[in-house]
């Protein structure tokens, strides 16, 4: 017995899986670390330092983030090329989500490239030339200085919103693609759950970004 696996089948399943694990898990970790900024620069800088002291950090970063990210991003663009959107003739919510998943994917491609070169590597001359990862003691200040430039802050807001949408809808997609969600009612209920998850994640992500320009984030001084 045994069913033959085709190349496309394996590549698609890897694409779907990589979106959740490791990329989705990483995004949660990323927002968690960013949220450390809510309690002040020192806490955030320590969190950055802790991350850099993870054993085998080089392999964790390459195998757990860079390779899956590049794979998911490049194959995601290939999948996007295959789409023949027809949203005006068939204007249903799921058909819009289908299109938005591809548009946010393209936004993410440019945003993540910029974001990684900017903060991880410090390779954007004229904006930032210091790697946040390698200078944990300056981490908060580097981000804070950039976020005070309004166009940069807007770019980050768009990036965060696109990522959250892509992941929240992506979890729903993963559940149907792997045969976890099946019936119409289950599709609807998991849809609501993903919307709720997305709203919370969006607020957490935005609040963490605001914490770099306003002490304590949106609710600073209240909580």
């Amino acid at each position: 017995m045994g069913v033959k696996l085709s190349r496309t089948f394996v590549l698609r399943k890897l694409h779907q899986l990589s979106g959740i694990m490791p990329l989705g898990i990483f995004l949660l970790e990323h927002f968690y670390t960013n949220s450390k900024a809510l309690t002040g620069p020192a806490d955030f800088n320590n969190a950055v330092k802790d991350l850099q002291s993870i054993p085998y950090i080089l392999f964790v970063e390459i195998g757990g983030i860079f390779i899956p990210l590049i794979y998911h991003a490049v194959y995601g663009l290939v999948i996007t090329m295959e789409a023949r959107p027809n949203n005006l003739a068939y204007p249903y919510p799921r058909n819009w989500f289908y299109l938005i998943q591809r548009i946010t994917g393209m936004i993410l491609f440019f945003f993540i490239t910029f974001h990684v070169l900017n903060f991880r590597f410090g390779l954007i001359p004229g904006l930032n030339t210091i790697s946040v990862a390698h200078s944990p003691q300056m981490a908060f200040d580097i981000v804070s200085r950039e976020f005070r430039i309004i166009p940069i802050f807007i770019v980050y807001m768009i990036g965060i919103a696109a990522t959250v949408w892509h992941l929240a809808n992506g979890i729903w997609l993963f559940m149907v693609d792997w045969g976890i969600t099946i019936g119409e009612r289950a599709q609807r209920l998991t849809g609501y759950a993903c919307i709720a998850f997305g709203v919370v994640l969006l607020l957490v992500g935005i609040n963490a970004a605001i914490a770099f320009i306003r002490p304590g984030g949106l609710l600073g001084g209240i909580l």
Partner: protein
Amino acid sequence: MSAHAVNQKKSNRVPPKTVEIHIRRRANPDSPQYWEVFELPYRPNLNIISCLMEIQKNPVTKEGNPTTPPVWQMNCLEQVCGICTMVINGRARQSCSALIDNLEQPIKLEPMSKFPNIRDLVVDRSQMFDHLKQVNAWVELDGTHDLGPGPRMDQEEVQERYSYSRCMTCGCCLEACPQYEGDNYIGPQAIAQVRLFNMHPSGKMTRDERLEGIMGEDGITNCGNAQNCVKACPMGIPLTRAIYEENRETVVHGLFGWLKS
């Protein structure tokens, strides 16, 4: 819109004097497409086929130029066979059940775009038949001897299988699918038939052959979950349910099948 609201709208509307129909035509498979406009007197309860028959009787365009009679396919005239499917005002549906009174004028008729266009509104949908062969959409039975009564199925399963069995291979789901183009994807129609036969107690015995049929380069993973198929299907077949059931089967028996070996 509720039936009541539709009736309300209809009774309030002044009936038009004429029906204007734009047809996207093609003389033969290799020649380019072109539009022609026809106009005919309005009658209540006209449908697209009756309009096409009128035009066929007297093939003169709205500007008064004589032309060739437009070609289309039809058979049952009661939305059962699927052969008369075409794109009406941008959406794939059966022309025999498309009432003029419910359509916005001018009415635009086009052949389906996802299949080779033979002539005028006629397309060659043999890819759908090829896909049925690719997925072994039948139950294997050897010999003509009496096998006795078949195994029993519970009512819920019978109901679900009945809904998949109503597929008339019309192609609306494929026309509406943003992932289906040039035969690159086996599509929801064939996947629903895999579900139909994998649910059958005797059909189950050749389950893996069907799974292999939907796990190739053109397989089930090409679905992008736009879910237009289930909205476009005139038979109300729960296509996304079938796709997700088969996602589960391909994951359990295909991807993780080696764990049992």
